[in-house]
């Protein structure tokens, strides 16, 4: 059978502008290219500004995950300024970041990824008495009966495909889509209690936070946390298990590179202990993470600046028409290796290191429920499961962290901006390992670089031609109908792409897929 080329552009239900091209032979993907389609130049804009502008501006790299970027920035500033936040400052930063994990994971599963599996037209068969579901049913039905072409927009049209056939499962999923809107909103309220507002909070500063602490804020936070936690344990995790059990083949699809790193994040004491352990799992071996082994390559990225550089020495000189380049993402590598980051990376590394017994027993219990082996986690469904399971542990810990807050103690340590300095801020974001690097000269930002989860996962080929994690995960994916490549979306969305942060991957047969800007 002849090779067929499929271009999916834009890949929607993600953050940002992503193009995926795949080559299909005999019903399977044999080559893949991931391309980020947008560049803004955040690092360039940050230059010459005051270093204290970095947290609010870095947050605005992404409206879905601003807090990780704010966190990376304040950690980099803490490092550069030589300042340490008081316990309250550390805890409030954690609570804000953790609240964002909740918002982000719920948004991802229910509102971005689920439509690849759930048949929303099943609502037409609803016979119950729930007012909201009946309203949705009437909404779709009346438009459809009136011959309105866009009935059910923006959820229809969609690809044809093997959606869930059981009406009861579909309708429950639709009901939970609606409920998840409300619960996700409450996670944002939790964040705003300490952050002032969200998206893009007001209170992240070097040396801690600006949030004045009082009992009312603590209680407001805790009560919402209890409600959100209940949804995660009683609805979100069962829903992921339900979808996973209906698509067991997706525990075999989208395995990808199989190498993982985690920077670690969410410090739980003042001595460097982290909720998320750092580490690496490369070529089947567990190891310690060393930030000095990160380098970014740009042969296939639209930058004319140097390749193979450590982020602090990184350069960002855009070249929209660079010959042979196909992505605005750089290609970060760890010790030269292609690696995946994210909830699955955290799960694999912590499971194998035995970093957290609660974490390990929860994963073991999920594996036994689904009749799977640990290796099966490295897959499309494994990524969804890792996301849901980590929220259960995280929300338990959040409840403990809130209790550690002391309304009478300070939230912030004073800092002085140094004339010259350097700093690095590493954390875990909802989507994976995130690093910010800053260098300061004459009290101004001289250089700023961010290496974000989607750059790790969605970046293009490196200078040696090794495909990025998205591209590798697509290889071998069965495509039932090239006109409706629903499988491509399932594989890529399992990574939870966030392209405003990162952008771009894909490479391949240069003859066919050469970037066509020129």
């Amino acid at each position, binding site marked *: 059978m002849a090779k067929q080329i499929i271009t999916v*552009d834009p890949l*929607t239900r993600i953050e*940002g502008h992503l193009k995926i091209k795949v080559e299909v032979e005999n019903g399977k993907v044999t080559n893949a290219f991931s391309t980020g389609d947008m*560049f803004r130049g955040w690092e360039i804009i940050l230059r010459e500004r005051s270093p204290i502008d970095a947290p609010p501006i870095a947050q605005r790299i992404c409206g879905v995950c601003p807090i990780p970027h704010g966190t990376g920035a304040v950690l980099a500033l803490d490092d550069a300024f030589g300042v340490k936040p008081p316990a309250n400052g550390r805890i409030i930063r954690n609570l804000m970041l953790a609240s964002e994990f909740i918002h982000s994971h719920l948004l991802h599963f229910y509102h971005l990824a689920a439509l690849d599996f759930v048949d929303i037209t099943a609502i037409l068969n609803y016979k119950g008495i729930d007012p909201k579901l009946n309203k949705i049913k009437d909404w779709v039905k009346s438009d459809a009966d009136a011959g309105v072409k866009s009935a059910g927009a923006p959820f229809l049209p*969609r690809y044809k495909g093997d959606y869930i056939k059981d009406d009861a499962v579909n309708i429950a999923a639709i009901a939970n889509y609606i409920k998840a809107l409300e619960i996700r909103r409450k996670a944002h*309220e939790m964040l705003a209690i300490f952050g002032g507002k969200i998206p893009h909070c007001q*209170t992240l500063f070097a040396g801690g936070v600006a949030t*004045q602490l009082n009992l009312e804020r603590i209680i407001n936070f805790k009560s919402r946390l209890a409600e959100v936690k209940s949804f995660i344990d009683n609805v979100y995790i069962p829903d992921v298990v339900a979808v996973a059990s209906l698509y067991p083949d997706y525990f075999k699809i989208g395995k990808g590179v199989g190498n993982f790193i985690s920077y670690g994040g969410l410090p739980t004491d003042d001595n460097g202990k982290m909720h998320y352990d750092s580490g690496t799992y490369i070529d089947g071996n567990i190891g310690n993470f060393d930030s000095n082994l990160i380098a970014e390559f740009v042969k296939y990225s639209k930058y004319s600046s140097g390749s193979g550089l450590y982020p602090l020495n990184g350069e960002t000189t855009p070249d929209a028409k660079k010959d042979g380049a196909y992505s605005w993402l750089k290609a970060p590598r760890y010790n030269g290796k292609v690696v995946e980051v994210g909830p699955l990376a955290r799960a694999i590394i912590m499971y194998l290191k035995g970093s957290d017994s609660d974490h390990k027993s929860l994963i073991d219990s999920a594996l036994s429920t689904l009749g799977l082996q640990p290796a099966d986690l490295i897959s499309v469904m494994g990524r969804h499961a890792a996301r849901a399971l980590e929220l259960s542990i995280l929300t338990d810990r959040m409840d403990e962290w809130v209790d550690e807050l002391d309304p009478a103690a300070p939230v912030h340590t004073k800092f002085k901006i140094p004339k010259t300095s350097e700093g690095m801020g590493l954390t875990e974001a909802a989507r994976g390992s995130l690093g910010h690097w800053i260098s300061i000269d004459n009290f101004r930002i001289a250089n700023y670089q961010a290496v974000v989860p989607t750059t790790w996962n969605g970046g293009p080929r490196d200078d040696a031609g090794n495909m990025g994690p998205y591209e590798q995960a697509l290889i071998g994916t069965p495509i039932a109908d090239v006109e409706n490549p629903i499988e491509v979306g399932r594989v890529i969305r399992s990574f939870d792409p966030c392209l405003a942060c990162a952008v771009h991957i894909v490479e391949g047969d240069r003859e066919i897929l050469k970037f066509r800007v020129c």
Partner: protein
Amino acid sequence: MLISRKKFLQVSAGSIAGVALSSLWLPKLLSAADAKNGKGRLPVIWFQAQACSGCAVSFLDAAYPSVDDVLIEVISLEFNPVIMGATGDLAMGVIDRMMVEEKGKYIFVVEGSIPTEADGFYCTVGEKEGNPVTALEWVKNIAANSMAVVAVGACASWGGIPSAPPNPTGAMPASKIVTGKPIINIPGCPPHPDWMVGTIVNVLKYGIPELDKLNRPTMFYGTDKLIHDNCELRQYFDTGTFAKDYGDKGCLYELGCKGPVSHCDVSTRGWNGGVNWCNRSGGPCIGCTEPFFPGGAGSGLYEKLPAVEVPGLEKININANTVGVALGGVVVAGIGAHAAARMIATKYRQNKEEKNRDKGTPYILKEKEEEEDK
């Protein structure tokens, strides 16, 4: 007062270029909306250019009405890349169909600035005949076939952070790209969901709301919505109690608060279900609803508003150079702090404008000053 069909068409066609929208001809827009696609809801195309999706996520945070009610009862959201079911060509086909079949009937929501350098190739969306299509081209075409354009967020309204010096991609606001269509700006980084939903509901039910000279709905951004005038920390300002460090009690002026030069209603509306808002949290206002946001390389988000000299309690001069507001614990007698804040605001804008002119920041509107200075 209704206007004639001829007049309405003139305005819609842009023959009265640069005229700020007024509710005068709104009733006509309304009937255009009613004519649309038989759903009784406003068809909307929500397009992202150089966006971070923060505006879209804020829209999802709408509480009363909730976003699901908005989708069911208020608008017909035909295209939104964050939540739509369709992907790839299937998704872009929706826009192609709308531009023909719903020509002149849909609201075009733009999120993000639009890059113009490198022929627009800093942002491409979809392909036509195998070639990438720039966001610049999409925005021009979708706007040309729309009823009106709604720019959501600081980026689409003024250019925002992507347009901050040195503006590496030639990022422009929607108003610099779109011609001949009414434009409503809903700035903020991001805008409050109520501002977006409220504006759209207003368009559907009553027509385009009253707009200021920056094309912002006055019901959310009016001159009576100056943050400083409505701030719950105002008493600290009036009594000269100023926070010296983050987390301190007091007015946030010394920490760089832009409340005296920024307009919106969050101080009374509250963010995220009303649980908090910017200044209440202790994080100073950064002026995200104003064209100067985020300032230039020489200024920055937390630059303190112009310094104030306090010659002494007996000799407080009030003029543009020495604004007689007591800072640092001195109570000002006999001086309206309100008037003083206005003067700070004026001076700030003058400084800012000079700086930004040099730095090349798109600093669009100056008329506002005249209006405010009255």
